[in-house]
């Protein structure tokens, strides 16, 4: 047997379970009035984001998330849609990262980010129950109680408690990211999922600012077992504001990274007709890791960038 055959034989139980999790996920959405869409992985323009670097493909770009296409569908009147999509992000490689990975995204028209959190709680619990685990999961030696509601805490409260500063009133983007991975994530309650709420406005990206508190965006992130699992927003549907944010980001990318990021103008045009809606993006590989008790993404995909 070659090394590759041995490796793939060892991975087979995880990959079979992965197939099952994909089926259960589809069943979850299909039975709740959603329908599955399939949008291009290769596009002329994607959302310009300084810290997410796309692969070039003959002058177009490989998608980093299906978000813009799914919002164009919402603008055309679609309401409950989901997608399992391969996404690509350059230079992202580590125990929890592979440059090609699978995102699950779903959107609901006329809803906000609180409903997306509820969906996420229900989805993860449903998968756990369908796999026969019930409410309690064991991951990397720790038990995790998945029973909703999961604990919710604002980013401001969390940073004040664990990092000793206020990222909302005194924003510091560099310390924000470093402290997130060194001071916040390692000290979350390991036995319960955590939902972080209301990110500083500067990290809003495509989220709308909180009505009544423009210092924060209606953005939520879900962490389970130390894994950043899902990111969701009440979506921004104001074209002028979105375009201004994009242009600012494009300028940063041009100056700091000498990279040309095109403005996604078809998306911006569609945004004028997009209803108020909310969406969530969940890392399928990490969800599968949780249910396979896998420490590394390499244990839940057959071929990583290093074995491709």
């Amino acid at each position, binding site marked *: 047997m070659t090394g590759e055959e041995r490796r793939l034989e060892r991975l087979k139980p995880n990959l079979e379970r992965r197939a099952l999790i994909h089926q259960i996920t589809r069943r979850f959405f299909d039975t709740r009035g959603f329908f599955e869409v399939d949008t291009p992985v290769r596009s002329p323009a994607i959302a310009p*984001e300084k*810290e*997410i670097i796309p692969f070039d493909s003959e002058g177009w770009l490989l998608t980093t998330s299906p978000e813009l296409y799914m919002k164009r569908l919402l603008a055309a009147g679609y309401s409950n849609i989901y997608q399992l999509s391969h996404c690509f992000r350059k*230079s*992202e*490689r*580590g*125990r*929890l*990262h592979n440059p090609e990975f699978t995102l699950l995204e779903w959107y609901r028209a006329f809803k906000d980010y609180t409903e997306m959190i509820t969906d996420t709680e229900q989805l993860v619990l449903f998968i756990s129950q369908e796999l026969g685990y019930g409410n309690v999961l064991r991951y990397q030696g720790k038990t995790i109680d998945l029973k909703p509601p999961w604990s919710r805490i604002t980013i401001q409260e969390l940073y004040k408690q664990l990092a000793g500063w206020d990222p909302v009133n005194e924003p510091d*983007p*560099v310390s*924000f*990211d*470093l402290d*997130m*991975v*060194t001071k916040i994530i390692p000290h979350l309650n390991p036995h319960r999922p955590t939902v972080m709420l209301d990110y500083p406005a500067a*990290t809003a*990206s495509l989220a709308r600012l909180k009505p009544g508190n423009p210092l924060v965006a209606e953005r939520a*992130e879900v962490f389970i077992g130390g894994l*950043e699992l899902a*990111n969701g927003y009440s979506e921004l549907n104001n074209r002028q504001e979105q375009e201004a944010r994009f242009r600012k980001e494009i300028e940063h990318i041009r100056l*700091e*990274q000498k990279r040309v990021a095109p403005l996604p103008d078809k998306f911006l045009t569609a945004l004028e007709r997009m209803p108020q809606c909310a969406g969530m993006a969940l*890392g399928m590989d990490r969800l599968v890791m949780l249910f396979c008790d896998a420490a590394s993404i390499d244990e839940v995909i057959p071929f990583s960038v290093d074995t491709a």
Partner: protein
Amino acid sequence: MQVEDARKGTKILLEGIPYNIEDAEFMKPGKGRAIYRYRLRNLVDGSSLERTYHSGEKLQAASISTHEGQFLYREGHHYVFMHTDTFEQYLIDEKILGEKHNYLKEGMTVVTMFLEDRPIDITLPIFIETVVTKSDIATRTDTVTAQMKRATLETGMELDVPVFIKEGDTIKVDTRTGNYVERVVTRK
């Protein structure tokens, strides 16, 4: 070199000292900046340290190569070696060799590590055979330590050897620990 291009095993320079990236941890909040945490091994003295870098930062790549070299002779504070492929000679300062000079015998082959074209370290064979040039005579009054006594080797190094070792004997020494291993029986 961009931090994104470094991998486990990449050699980098920090303040002129070469390090090997022994372990690399990639951390990134989904929408945030990538953070690289490295465990670095100092290639000269073997010590290790941790460093954290952000995406977009630059690293200085270290051009490290290794070649076999033969130790020829000592000249003041320098040791003269010859590259076994090109027969070029090069000098290594005794400060760079540290304790390793204790094991160098003329004619011995070692592996030399070069940073660009500057020799920065040598790797000795794990075991060397060397002649005892001087040893104390064991006395009866020695009790607990009686099984071992001090001896001096042809390289000038001192170590503990069993009492049965005599001047002129060839012994095997472990260069990792500096300990006596066994007596080598030489055919006469």
